[in-house]
């Protein structure tokens, strides 16, 4: 394993902690080492350029290595699929890359990309699509040309479209093989409803109704310059990149995109339990209810609430109670997410099957306790706030990270200095705010539970 030297090979490596990365003891040993003021976050400079075709570009020169990364985000997604063509967005997303482009047949395109040691990929998710290019800067112009061909001149070769279709069918069938993924899919269907645009899944046996014409039309409806945001960082002169973008990308902004109406969710909080038979000895548990919409004014309080409950590792309540104190689960976490039309409040756990109900009860207890006023200690809020604020500089530790953040801010309607806004927002939150958020956004009597494990209902 010399190659792939910086990528962990899945099963060969065992991590200590299965969740993402949460008061002070005055240890003599570390005295004086915590006093120094932490480096401050300053808004990085990014060139914002709007091309004549209407595409907004966030660009950052970084000459430290001979590499370039470019990502184009497109407003499209599976929420816009007609109900009888589920899977259309996903197939289109993969066929953009795999089914030839411009002058190149699919095979020639594959060969060209590999010969440059480049990575070029495309996909369409629930509410956005993207095409991503990583390439050595020597090949920049070829890369920009290819990127344009993929975005605007995909060939949708018939044979490759068929392959994209059966690859999707196969991967849908294989969802069940990953209990963590499958439990999350089932849980989101339990909360949003099986037919909700935010949770529905294509039937692997019905994808054949999706033909090249459908794909071409879907692509043509959304892949227009004015509906795209570009983020680029690396070893180039901004001026040169912009010139190449002007040269290879379409001159016209394209027709105005009309988005199909997506029915709005009507939030309700009714308890439910679904038990699904699956894995042999473990039960994969998901419990919770709807979360919040993006731009919720209480978001920072909600975010800190999540940290306290189960999103900040060892010091959060769920992890302490279920893993640290009782050793009941390796993997346990929880928190509230935001999304365009409601995110989710989810507690995720996997436990040995005989511990499942005990773990659920412990989690319920913690949710209930938090949702009642006045239970948060100064220490736990202080730790949650401090660790978020102190690590905020990591938001800006890479040029491509910075420009893709800017693109995301624009895509979801956040201000261009959202890093700072979020920092200040977190800093302002008080204990009362978090307690208010807990009673407002946690509904202990409306918890839906999904259990994927050895036993059936």
């Amino acid at each position, binding site marked *: *394993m*010399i*190659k792939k*030297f*910086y990528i962990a090979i899945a*099963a*060969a490596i*065992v991590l*200590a902690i299965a969740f993402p*990365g*949460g008061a002070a*003891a005055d240890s*003599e*040993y570390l005295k004086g*080492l*915590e006093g*120094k003021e*932490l*480096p401050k976050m300053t808004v990085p400079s990014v060139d914002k350029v709007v091309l004549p075709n209407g595409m907004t570009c966030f660009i950052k020169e970084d000459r430290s*290595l*001979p*590499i370039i990364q470019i990502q184009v985000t497109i407003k499209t997604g599976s929420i816009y699929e007609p109900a009888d063509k589920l899977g259309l967005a996903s197939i289109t997303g993969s066929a953009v890359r795999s089914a030839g482009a411009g*002058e*190149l047949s699919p095979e020639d395109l594959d060969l060209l*990309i*590999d*010969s440059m*040691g480049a990575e070029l990929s495309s996909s369409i998710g629930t509410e956005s699509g993207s095409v991503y290019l*990583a390439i*050595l800067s020597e*090949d920049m112009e*070829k890369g920009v*040309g290819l990127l344009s061909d993929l975005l605007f001149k995909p060939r949708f070769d018939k044979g*490759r479209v068929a392959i994209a279709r*059966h690859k999707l*069918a*196969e991967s849908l*069938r*294989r969802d*069940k*093989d990953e209990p*963590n993924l499958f439990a999350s899919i089932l849980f989101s269907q339990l909360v949003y409803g099986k037919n909700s645009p935010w949770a529905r899944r294509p039937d692997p046996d019905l994808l054949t109704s999706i033909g090249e014409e459908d794909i071409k039309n879907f692509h043509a409806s959304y892949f227009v310059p004015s509906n795209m945001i570009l983020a680029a960082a690396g070893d180039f002169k901004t001026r040169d990149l912009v010139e190449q973008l002007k040269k290879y990308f379409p001159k016209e902004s394209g027709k105005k995109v009309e988005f199909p109406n997506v029915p709005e969710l009507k939030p309700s909080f009714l308890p439910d339990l679904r038990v699904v038979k699956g894995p*042999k000895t*473990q039960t994969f548990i998901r419990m919770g209810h709807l979360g919040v919409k993006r731009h919720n004014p209480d978001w920072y309080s909600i975010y800190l609430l999540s940290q306290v409950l189960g999103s*900040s590792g060892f010091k959060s309540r769920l992890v*302490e109670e279920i893993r*640290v104190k009782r*050793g009941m*689960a*390796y*993997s346990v976490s929880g928190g509230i997410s935001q999304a365009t039309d409601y995110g989710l409040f989810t507690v995720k756990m*996997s436990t*040995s099957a005989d511990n499942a109900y005990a773990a659920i009860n412990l989690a319920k207890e913690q949710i209930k306790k938090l949702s009642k006023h006045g239970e948060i200690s100064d220490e736990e809020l202080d730790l949650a706030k*401090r660790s978020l604020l*102190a690590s*905020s*500089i*990591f938001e800006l*530790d*890479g040029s491509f990270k910075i420009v893709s953040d800017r693109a995301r801010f624009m895509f979801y309607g956040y201000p261009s200095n959202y890093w700072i806004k979020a920092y200040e927002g977190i800093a302002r939150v008080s204990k009362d705010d978090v307690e208010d958020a807990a009673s407002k956004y946690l509904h202990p009597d409306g918890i839906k539970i999904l259990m994927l494990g050895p036993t059936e209902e």
Partner: protein
Amino acid sequence: MRIFLRFIAAVFIIFFAFSAEASNLSQRVHEVQLKNGMKWLIVRRTGAPVFFGAVILRVGGLNETPGKTGLAHMFEHMAFKGSTRLGTKDYDQEKPLLRMIEDLGELREEEERSKKPDRMKIEQIDLWIKNFEKEADEYRLKNEVWEILMRNGANEINAFTSKDMTAYYASMPKNRLELWARVAAEMVFDPVFREFYIERDVVADERRSLTENNPNGEMAERILRAAYKDGPYRSSTIGSMEDIENLTIADAREFHRRYYVPGNMVGIIVGDVSITNAKKIIQKVFGGYERRPLPEAPLHSGEWKRGTYERFAFNSEPSIAIAYHKPTLPDKDEYVFDVITSLLCEGRSSRLEKKLVYDEKLARGISCSNGYPGSRLDNLLILWIEPLTGVPSKKILSAVEEEIEILRTSPASAGDLARVRKQVLAEIMFALDDNRSLGMALGRFDAVFGDWRILADYPEMISAVTPEDVIKVSNKFMTKDDRIVVERVKSR
């Protein structure tokens, strides 16, 4: 097509230009050798005011003895539980309680291993352990290691164990270098085995999620058993459930005494730090630990099985793995295997992906792993294929065999090898773009292959691989008779 032809001609020029960039790495790495044998590698990378730090140990699953699989990983979990100085309010008060728990654990283990274990007695012991843990909790600051790093801005704190090595790491704001170094030193040099038996349950649950409830994890373990009769590479890093459930504090203590010695460690710092200051801190924090004898490590992965064919049923979609025994560094054939892996599986134009996924439409995907389950000892090249529904495994096997036959008989073209070289270079360039990936690459090469410089020379070694090398090596190691096949079929 025109673009394409022009491009191939240009590859060679570009290659040499970048080669300079990669070898530049040698000048950027500052090596510090402490008197006690511990080595440090420091690289200054300006940019964000942060650094990545790691302490990597040349110890992993391969150092475990039979009956104690999973111990290296169990130990890694314990390192987060603090030291005599961290994680405790009053270690002097806590210590006798820990001693009791340790003794009880041994007693329990003895009972478990006796001919007729007395369940009542074991339950009683468990209860005592639980009570002593509760009492000890009075003196503890739970997860203080984690908390200190978090409140000082750690971006990622984690650790991992593989067959070859164990790594503890974090990314921190740059003016927390000494703080991180001190916490890391406590973790590796002075661990206190708190809450051992609770954590053992956590690890048991981790095993459940990696194997019996995870078709690919289960398959990975079966590949190892199909490939080795015995030896350190026959078992997975997580270890067997039976072994995990019988690990004791004394096991962990002995493991620590033997393997966690300065000469068996390499430290890494990559980021926006001053080299002089970093050297000073390292000397101050790590220089005081005494030199201790280096542990012995096994020299062989185990006795090879050849030509094994195994089939097992699982409640999941089917999968096929084909494995070949192969050498590792310093054997130069390792570079040839990296080239072979690239030719077969890197990118959509690679031979196996093109054939199986696109031309013959037999599989959803293929991935190849050169160096499973580790690279310190001779190991396996694994081709792992997910067939499309209804495609018989025979068809997959013969399609793969056709491609391997081409490898054995027809020399790779200049274009093929040029592509591999460029892919390797691009991969290295992108790895250099990140403190963590650069740090882990240096640390891994040093811990696994004994010298980080192998990384700097790597592109050159890959370019030196000839079409004849590929033919020779594939004929020697990738024969149909010797290949190991593990097939997973759907049970439901």
